């Protein structure tokens, strides 16, 4: 996609996607990052439900921005921000969406690079925000 067709997608958001937070997914994530915190593994230690590690929410399904086509292999993660309203627990049902909020171009070491900025949000069933994210990715394969 060209810079202009990326820019045409600014402001568009995905349809919210229902994500059910599973114990096994939290345990597997904690294992992968090698964090021994018992709150991520042991329900008794966690006081009932497992707690998800602070970066876990990046792995949820936020859906796709309509009309936006991303070359998966050409993407580089440049920045990531989280704003937490409460922890995520196993058993949570979260509705997640993503919105393209900015597109800009920079000249870098690897040549011309297109930066895409997404704002992502996970809400509970009552519509309360649980975590907000801002994610900046560099698209290396952007056409002219």
């Amino acid at each position, binding site marked *: 996609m060209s810079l202009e067709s990326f820019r045409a997608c600014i402001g568009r958001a995905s349809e919210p996607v229902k994500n059910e937070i599973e114990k096994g*997914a939290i345990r*597997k*994530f904690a*294992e*992968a*990052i*090698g*964090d021994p*915190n018992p709150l991520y593994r042991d329900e008794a230690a*966690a*006081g*009932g*439900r497992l*707690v998800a*590690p*602070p*970066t876990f929410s*990046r*792995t949820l399904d936020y859906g796709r921005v309509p009309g936006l086509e991303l070359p*998966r*292999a050409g*993407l*580089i*993660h*440049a*920045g*990531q*921000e*989280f*704003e*937490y309203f*409460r*922890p995520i*627990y196993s*058993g*949570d*049902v979260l509705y997640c969406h993503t919105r393209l909020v900015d597109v800009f171009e920079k000249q870098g070491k690897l040549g011309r690079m297109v930066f895409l900025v997404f704002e992502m949000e996970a809400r*509970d*069933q*009552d519509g*309360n925000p649980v975590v907000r994210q*801002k994610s900046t990715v560099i698209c290396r394969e952007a056409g002219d």
Partner: protein
Amino acid sequence: MASVRRFQVGDVLGPLVRPPVTKTQLVMYSGASGDFNPIHTVDEYAREAGLGGVIAHGMLTMAFVGQLLTETAGAGGALKRFGVRFVEMVRPGDTIVCEGRVTGVAEQGGQQVVTCDVWAAIEGSGKHAVIGQAVFTAPLQEEETPSQEDGP
């Protein structure tokens, strides 16, 4: 039971020294995160992409810094904000050292609100893989068993 830590501007957080990143860990993180970009798992692919071999997911290094923050805030604390920039690639064999420095402390609602700079260094390289900022709360006083927030 350990006494409550009172944070002050200039306090050093960490270091948290992680075991060296392994290719197996990158496969595990791909599976756990759903990020199956082959630049993290297939050496041939990563070399063709000009990376010289597989590189770690930026989010894996960020998770290491997340561990530093949750361990620092403690059971009675909570992470409020956490942001990083990914500035250097991490490769299998790299040892990541996570550290931070307190830049601000406020008291609010009976809690300490701590603002800090955080970073993850690649040991022996003199380079940072990620740099960022975070805000977390920590108790001012000894708490009973931390209670879990009510879910929906």
